[in-house]
């Protein structure tokens, strides 16, 4: 039995849905992309001054055409991530601008080499079933920053990728990058490798860029992950229930636009809902209420039978301290128990600003622990204890039993050396290493064992051509040097 957490009772859930439908009609949703407005208008939504009033019947139709389940595939074309049911996956957080430098312990601007190291670490850790375009590369041409980081991830990973475009016009080129790697756009549609995060702007606004992304992704058959980001108390109602209503309304509007563009195209009910810190004005990704919001929003998506996503595992701490461990561990556990299909955010510090390969390694331990909880408790045989007592008797020599040897690996999650369970003496003998020192050693081990996937020369040159073409079109002075 996979244990499950639900924070909303039936009555509250119905009330949330009722108010979400009401918001879609009054005040409606601001929609700015011409294609999306046209689709909505043709389908019977009333459009006035850039605001679409979306009738419930239209929403119901979109919900019935959206798929219940789909898979992301690895580089070999095998299904690797299941979006649907109560499957739970994790991927590193996205779009950081800083990295915690493991030598200087300073937060500094991210470069391509930092992204490569993060990808290598995530590639080696089975807890991450997908990669993410984890940072913005400050040494790459700014105009094609989104294409650049996707290509870096694709060059270094065989796993599925959670990514996103920085503008309306770069998404199609990113799709071309992916298509080049898997044998064309038709093959990409049949076995998608990547999913694109698309963010409505709170409150109740689908910007030109985001709505156009939805339309383009739906038509290309590349999965879209809606990232609704209500900040309770700032850009959304201060109550958790009120923020869940807004999240639902924004997701529903997105799904309507998406399904009108291409019924049946894969789409995910997702987001990064959070509270708002009333002292600092930051978005505390490690707050327990942020985790509660993610769990509740996912429950609504599951009620509709849709694949879900959440943003947990990031911390507001600045280094790998007790706060980072505490926030990450409790959030990851809540998210896993809520059965969220894809949980993004591992590796992040300083709310959403800073990434850390060392934290990625630590978070893999928290994730493994949460995954252990999901496996629950099972009998593992006809007899629970009596048969083993028949052999061990009062002497209690359970360590000698073949069952012990056979079962301990499935009963216990075996953490890496990052988690210290040794004696005081052995810890002292090992140099009394603190957590960060152990995490650094673990990362170095993983990076040393990493091997870059072999890529046909032809794909690399196709990528290069796409990057150069896009950089040239954007007027980048760095185009020729790529």
């Amino acid at each position, binding site marked *: 039995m996979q244990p499950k957490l639900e924070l909303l009772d039936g009555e509250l859930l119905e009330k949330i849905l009722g108010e979400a439908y009401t918001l879609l009609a009054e005040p409606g949703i601001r929609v700015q992309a011409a294609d999306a407005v046209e689709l909505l208008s043709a389908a019977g939504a009333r459009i006035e001054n850039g605001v679409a009033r979306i009738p419930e019947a239209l929403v119901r139709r979109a919900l019935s055409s959206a798929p219940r389940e789909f898979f992301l595939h690895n580089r070999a074309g095998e299904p690797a991530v299941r979006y649907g049911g109560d499957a739970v996956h994790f991927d590193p957080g996205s779009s950081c*601008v*800083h990295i915690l430098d493991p030598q200087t312990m300073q937060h500094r601007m991210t470069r391509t080499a930092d992204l490569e190291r993060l990808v290598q670490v995530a590639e080696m850790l089975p807890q991450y079933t997908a990669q993410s375009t984890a940072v*913005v590369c400050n040494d790459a041409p700014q105009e094609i920053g989104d294409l650049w980081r996707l290509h870096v991830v694709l060059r270094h990973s065989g796993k599925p990728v959670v990514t996103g475009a920085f503008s309306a016009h770069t998404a199609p080129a990113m799709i071309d990058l992916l298509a080049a790697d898997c044998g064309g756009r038709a093959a990409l549609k049949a076995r998608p490798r990547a999913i694109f995060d698309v963010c409505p702007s709170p409150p109740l606004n689908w910007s030109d860029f985001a709505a156009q992304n939805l339309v383009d992704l739906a038509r290309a058959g590349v999965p879209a992950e809606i990232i609704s980001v209500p900040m309770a108390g700032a850009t959304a109602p201060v109550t958790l229930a009120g923020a869940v209503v807004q999240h639902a309304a924004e997701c529903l509007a997105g799904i309507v636009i998406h399904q009108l563009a291409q019924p049946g195209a894969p789409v995910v009910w997702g987001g990064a809902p959070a509270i708002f810190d*009333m002292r*600092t*004005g930051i978005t505390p990704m490690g707050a327990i209420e942020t985790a509660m919001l993610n769990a509740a929003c996912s429950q609504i998506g599951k009620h509709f039978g849709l694949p879900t996503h959440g943003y947990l595992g990031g911390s507001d701490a600045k280094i790998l301290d007790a706060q980072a461990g505490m926030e990450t561990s409790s959030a990851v556990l809540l998210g896993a128990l809520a059965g969220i299909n894809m949980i993004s955010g591992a590796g992040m510090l300083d*709310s*959403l*600003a800073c990434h850390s390969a060392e934290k990625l390694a630590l978070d893999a331990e928290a994730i493994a622990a949460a995954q252990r909880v999901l496996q629950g408790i099972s009998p593992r045989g006809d007899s629970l204890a009596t048969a083993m007592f028949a052999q061990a008797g009062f002497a209690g020599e359970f360590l000698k039993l073949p069952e012990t040897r056979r079962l301990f690996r499935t009963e216990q999650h075996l953490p890496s050396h990052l988690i210290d369970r040794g004696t005081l003496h052995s810890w002292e003998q090992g140099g009394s290493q603190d957590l960060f020192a152990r995490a650094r050693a673990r990362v170095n081990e993983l990076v040393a064992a990493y091997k870059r996937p072999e890529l046909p020369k032809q794909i690399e040159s196709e990528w290069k051509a796409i990057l150069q073409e896009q950089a040239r079109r954007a007027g980048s002075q760095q185009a020729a040097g790529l």
Partner: protein
Amino acid sequence: MHDDLFRAMRDSIVDGDPEVAARLSRDSIALGVPPLEAINRGFVAGLTHVGEQFAAGEFFLPDLVLAGEAMKAAVAILEPEMKKSGAQREVLGTVVLGTVQGDIHEIGKTLVGTMLTASGFAVHDLGVNVPFETFAAKARELGADIVGVSALLTTTMTGQKDVAEALERHGLRPRVKLILGGAPVTHDWAREIGADGYGEDALAALSLARTLLGK
């Protein structure tokens, strides 16, 4: 004289109540209280208290925002009276504010605007998704002292550099000060792009603006 009225004015700011602040402003006009005195001895005292309490961690952002709203309501009624009588509140400086192109987050920027306005700066808020050039053009048009550029997204923060370059092209630097705000922004980033400073929150922005203009 009018000590009770000034105390009530102060409290209306601390309570964040625009309606009471507006009513007290009208009362003060009826009583013949000089509007500048009502602002400085009444409302500003409240704002100072809120600022101090916020800095001490006792008050929170909603307290600050609603205090700003109450202040705006009072000034909106008292300002026309001041103009009539020829009195003028000292303008500490002219500030052009906006959220950079590609970014539509406005909470932080608007909060900074509220605090600056409440404290006596003339603020021109360009809104969100503001093209780089517009910052420079507006600063030149208004003869601004400070340009404030906000960016919440890690992906749009680089636009602050484009604004810095636009100001340079217009020949406005270093006379016009450039200040930055936004969650991903740091002092290092401000230094790197040649800005004059970065404020962690609205109060820090206010004290930065005062320091830069020597007020």
